[in-house]
């Protein structure tokens, strides 16, 4: 029997049958429609309630102090830092999708980049809350960490990774916002043009910044967008590298490791894609956009997860290896303690979530079954949170002197703050879905078959700018 190679044609990035008009109609219709699915109200309402809980938790925190949390000496950082790193990591997928995949001309990014970028913004927002709130005196930390000129001539201490964090995260937030907004401008104009209500027209008109769709506009737009993509690309790598320095610069065993920057970046992308999947799979069902976010997207994202997940697994293995190979008693104790100490269950759950479960993604059937994918993405979300828990807590709780060893358990205020930011994220995301096009209309128009036939986007084959 002759060898017959298996043939596999990936699903299209947009289901057949769509035209320019149908794309525009469908996506803008979600925003401009008067009615909205009941599930939106359920999700946004839930998010709103959790946001109120967050406000309560923050208020109590400001009144009483960080002592309402479970942190102590020796575990000076707890949920706040875990959540910060987790949220920041989640943001990375959005930037990767919109910037790096753009530069790599991955046309499948088009369907998902808009809401992934929105996700980035909201994740950065949630993340940024924590470093501020976790300080003992946030009313001072809010500006003392910035290098502002003052009569005392006191500057921040630039050797501290926390200062690098301030710059990294604020840059990241700013660039992400600009990138996202720039990409929105043509769509805002579309919405302006299609809105029936005068106030909505005016609102979108202001936001569209006078976009008329002239060739000059497009040329400028393409250039700006490309530059911003170029600006964002290093940020994907740098932000989480800097965040990893918060730990790697410290001398605590379990933190002080050279592998942290790449390992954190891979983990961030891993977590981010899991979150994009977590959002995309319900969205395509709720809004019936399965023909825009197709199996091709889910499959591709699953592959990215699998790849980054393997890098993360490599990180874990190297951590354990160096724990022993270093011949340093503290490092060795740290890794043994992680695996067998009081928090062993967290470590092994993390391995189960982040290494074992995602191996199912090798199976195409799993990658193309949204329910499975959704479950795996949720498992990875939990796993990546646990990873931060393990890094922050198990490293601190038993460091050098056995006399100062301790334990950390979160309080209800820790949980309220964490779930509160989840609620804030959900609420913001669903508000975004309601008022802005969650999929880029004009970019989707560029990938309908008609665009290729007419050659309208012939330049898509050629880069507009030579690097």
């Amino acid at each position, binding site marked *: 029997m002759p060898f017959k190679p298996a043939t596999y044609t990936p699903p299209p990035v947009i289901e057949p049958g769509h035209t320019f008009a149908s794309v525009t109609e469908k996506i803008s219709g979600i925003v401009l429609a008067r009615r909205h699915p009941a599930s939106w109200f359920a999700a946004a309402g839930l998010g709103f309630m959790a946001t109120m809980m967050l406000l309560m938790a923050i208020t109590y925190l400001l009144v009483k102090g960080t002592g309402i949390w479970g942190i*102590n000496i020796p575990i000076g950082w707890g949920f706040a830092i875990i959540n910060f790193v987790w949220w920041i990591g989640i943001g990375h997928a959005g930037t990767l999708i919109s910037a790096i995949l753009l530069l790599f001309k991955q046309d499948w990014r088009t369907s998902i980049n808009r809401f992934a970028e929105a996700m980035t913004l909201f994740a950065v927002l949630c993340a940024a809350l924590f470093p501020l709130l976790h300080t003992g005196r946030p009313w001072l930390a809010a500006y003392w960490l910035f290098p502002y000129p003052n009569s005392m001539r006191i500057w921040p201490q630039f050797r*501290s990774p926390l200062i690098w964090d301030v710059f990294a995260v604020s840059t990241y937030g700013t660039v992400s916002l600009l990138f996202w907004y720039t990409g929105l401008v043509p769509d805002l104009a579309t919405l302006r043009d299609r809105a029936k209500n005068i106030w909505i027209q005016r609102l979108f008109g202001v936001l569209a910044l006078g976009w008329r769709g002239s060739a000059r506009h497009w040329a400028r737009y393409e250039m700006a967008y490309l530059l911003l993509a170029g600006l964002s690309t290093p940020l994907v790598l740098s932000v989480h590298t800097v965040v990893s320095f918060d730990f790697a610069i*410290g001398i605590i065993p379990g933190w002080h490791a050279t592998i942290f920057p790449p390992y954190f970046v891979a983990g961030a992308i891993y977590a981010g894609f899991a979150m994009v999947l977590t959002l995309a799979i319900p969205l395509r069902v709720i809004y019936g956009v399965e023909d825009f976010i197709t199996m091709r997207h889910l499959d591709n994202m699953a592959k990215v997860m699998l790849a980054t997940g393997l890098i993360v697994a490599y990180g874990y293995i190297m951590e354990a290896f160096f724990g022993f190979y270093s011949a340093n008693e503290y490092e060795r104790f740290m890794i043994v303690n992680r695996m067998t100490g009081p928090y062993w269950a967290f470590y092994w759950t993390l391995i189960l979530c982040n290494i074992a479960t995602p191996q199912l993604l090798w199976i195409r059937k799993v990658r193309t079954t949204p329910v499975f994918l959704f479950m795996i993405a949720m498992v990875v979300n939990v796993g990546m949170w646990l990873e931060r828990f393990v890094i922050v807590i198990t490293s601190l709780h038993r460091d050098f002197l*056995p*006399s100062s060893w*301790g334990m950390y358990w979160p309080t209800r205020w820790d949980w309220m703050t964490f779930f509160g930011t989840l609620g804030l994220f959900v609420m913001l995301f669903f508000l975004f879905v309601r008022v802005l096009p969650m999929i880029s209309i004009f970019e989707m128009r560029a990938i309908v078959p008609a665009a290729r036939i007419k050659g309208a986007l012939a330049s898509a084959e050629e880069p507009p700018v030579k690097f």
Partner: protein
Amino acid sequence: MSSLTAPPIRSRLAGAGGRLYWRSLGELADTPEFRSYVEREFPDQASEWNDPKGRRDFLKLMGASLALAGVGACTKQPPEAIVPYVRQPEDLVPGRPLFFASAVPQSGVAQPVLVESHMGRPTKIEGNPEHPASLGATDSLTQAAVLGLYDPDRAQTSTYRGEVRSSATFLSAIRSALAAQRGTGGAGLRFLTGPITSPSLAELMATILQEYPQARWHRYDPVSRPAGVGDVPHTIYHFDKADVIVSLDADFLTCGPAAVRYARDFADRRRINEEQKSMNRLYVVESTPSLTGAKADHRLPMLASQIQGFAQRLASAVGGSATGTPSGAPGSDVDKWIAAVVKDLRAHQGRSVVVAGDYQPATLHQLARTMNQALGNVGATVTYATIEAAAPDQGTSLADLATAMDAGRVELLVIMGVNPVFTAPADLRFRDKMTKVGLAIYHGLYVDETANLCHWNVAETHPLETWGDARAYDGTVTLTQPLIAPLYESRSAHELLATFTAQPGRRTLDIVKDYWTRAFQGSSDWKIKGANADPAAFDRFWKHAVHDGFIRGTALADVGPATPFKPAPKPAAAPVQTPQGVAAAGAAVGATGATQGALFTPSVPAQTPPPAPPGGVGVVPQPSTNAPANPSAALPEQRVPPPSGAGGAGAPPPQNQPPAVPRSPAPALAGGLEIIFRPDPTIWDGRFANLGWLQELPKPLSKITWDTSAWVHPLVADEHGLRDGDVIELRYRGNVAHMPVFRMAGHPRQSVTVFFGYGRTMAGRVGNATAGAQAFNAYLLRTSDAPWFGTGLEIAKTGGRYLLATTQEHHLMEGRHPVRVATLEHYLREPAIIQEMGEKPPKTLTLYPEHVYDGYKWGMAIDLTSCTGCGTCTVACVAENNIPVVGKDQVSRGREMHWIRVDHYFEGDLDDPRSLDNPSAVHQPVPCMQCENAPCEVVCPVAATTHSAEGLNDMVYNRCVGTRYCSNNCPYKVRRFNFLLYSDWTTPSLEPLRNPDVSVRSRGVMEKCTYCVQRINQARIDAKRDDRRIRDGEVVPACAAACPADAIVFGDLNDPNSQVVKLKAQERNYGVLEDLNTRPRTTYLAALRNPNPELANAG
């Protein structure tokens, strides 16, 4: 009122007939403006409120004014005149503290102190460096005395059945009660006090008892036995002369009034340096693991009831004339032990000492005495004497009093400074009997459990508020002088007792000074050097004594007399309330803060002495009570109850009890477990329960704070299925108490130790037990016939759990070497052994150029051979640095604030049962290491922690935003964070307690040890003024100053002759975690032990 001018005023004044009153010149002028002003009543806009049209304008204006009010705040405040001293008090420089010598009595025994006074408020206690009982150090209980002074829960006035009463009402009540007693000679009058060593107080009591011959004076202290035990009187050990020490269940290093001096003497004999290459050797046989046991070179754990049998075997082996069959503690190991110890003791005759534990029965004390006599130690390393004053013919026990109360024979009961309702043995049922007392008067610092059942409560004056005298452990008469006028309507013990005499209004100073005037001017009881009848000589003597804080030459070792007990001579004319006495109490209050006493350093004259009472002849013939120098030749007059049973002064048993018999020494305890009672290491018998500093001080070995626990051997706990914090029910002789369990390695297997002091219901807001913890009261189990241990205890798991807040959860070193231990022999042979236990990277391992410290270079060395782990440094640091008390809940969350902690580690493999039975334990005080390469500094984002040019790791509280990264990155975890607002900003009485030289930290700020930088800066100012460098020893941080063992030494590393440099030059000097290249400035001298080579493997 612009038209206010002189003419209309003049015209009105001219026209006025008679006296004219006016409020202001405006009224006087009576101008139209003023009339309208009065009519409107309020100056501006007020009438517009009722005017519907004007109201809107009014509201507008008001809104604008409110908005502008902020602008108004920018104006300068008007200057306010403050009045300076019209006459500047001598020596008082604002910002500079003054030091006064005084004493804080504990169970009647003086703890000599120097009190730091800032502008008239005492803030900190130091030891009196010239006093033999202190040598500059203190214990933790004494350190907390200032907190006791300012405790907001103190009794503040006199009350009768809870109603506030005036002093006069109280006096008349006493008078009428006494009048009723006079007819019967005071048959219904009873006094109950703690031990009294104060000669003047003893004289007052003797005077009263002379007046009312039928009255009785009962003495009771639940845990202290300053009177001695049985017929062995108070024993004074001279560890400075001892080479071999055998402790029979004695925690002499940390427990009791002499511990401060004993710890110093003990440590001095094991300080290894250039000159001294030998050490004393300590053998400890003990029941409950103690800090003394942890210091032992050989420790032998044993049931408390077996120790007497062991002592008998030891005594017969030593060759004393001990009677009784050697029994108990069989086993070849013990035989070997005894043989080795006896050999060692015999080799050191006259240079050894056998110490009997305070909580062992009289028989054991007798045995110890026999051994000391046989070894020729008496007179050399041991002296026997009596410091407690007692009438020879008085019934003393609490049991006698209880019997009398029960029989209704007690008509007037005066309870002074003891809390028998809480502390009395359970079988006395003291609480029930209180109701049968005719009139009960309570005198104490707090309205406690006993006060609650007394008719009259008289607030006691705190020792820091009053004059007084008391004897130190060695007999030295120590004077107390007031640092501040009494904060409340209180009386001293002298004043209260004086109300029972013919001169009820005498003030404390008059009484004390009068006594010493007579003693100086010719009383035969005291042989004071230079004594004569010249008032001027007395004046000099008194000034000196008050300045020094004690009367030289009154120590019992110097053949000073025992405290006389005889009434005062009858005065010809009662010098009631001399003006000087009033002044003495009142002067301290003034803005000056200068007392009538004497500053410690420069002597300040006291006031003129009161008129010396004529005569001065003892009225009642009294046998001479001088203690002989050598008690072996002639035992002192027996002034303590006859030896009976296991009881001592703590709770002497009823007279009909059989004499002491060693309790079943057999290891098999048919009747259940053995129970051992101990005072709590930090709150003692419960009297310090309301002092947060002591509650939060981790208890030695267990490191539990705020709570008591029952100590059980870990394997026994496993058998019963008990974990730490499981509540057990203890049934003992029909009494029941509950306790949370703590598993203590090294504890005898068949016994359980419980600690007194907890379960209080009326201690105050800090010390009151929660409802669930009121049963954690060891006094509920104590019986008067076996006050310290007994068999027959049964324990049962209740299933309840109780949170024990510990500051250290892990007591093993995990193969690391934070504490490096070696034997003396090994170290002398191979000095490098200590360095080989860790790595030290070369100084070139940094990218940065070496910092040059060309001024001062501060450093600290802590000798772990000396450190006993008592925790005094922690309390001293709390007192010096305004460190807040955070409470049990916060401690249980790992948020205690101590800047210096004492780590405790067990050595040995705790999986091995042998090791569990007798682990060796080490202690390590951990302040900030002040690393030269400080990991905390580089990670602070706002540069709130920085390095000073002198090598201090400074903390800038104002700059700190509280990221806690510094603490995470500190490998020693010595930084402390204000997770909540821990400092008490609201309780007014605690405000004067603060050290004004140290900031009171707010919420959200990191804090840490600064090597007491305020003291460094004070010394720097002094040195700059004199144009010199700071001298070695001029700066002493609070921890080092308080340390009884002198284990902490601080100084300038740039001074080649400084003590710290010499210490650090030793080869056993090492830094903890030096391998991290932190270069700690605080280093440790390895703990050396001196085991007997013959007992190489026997504990």
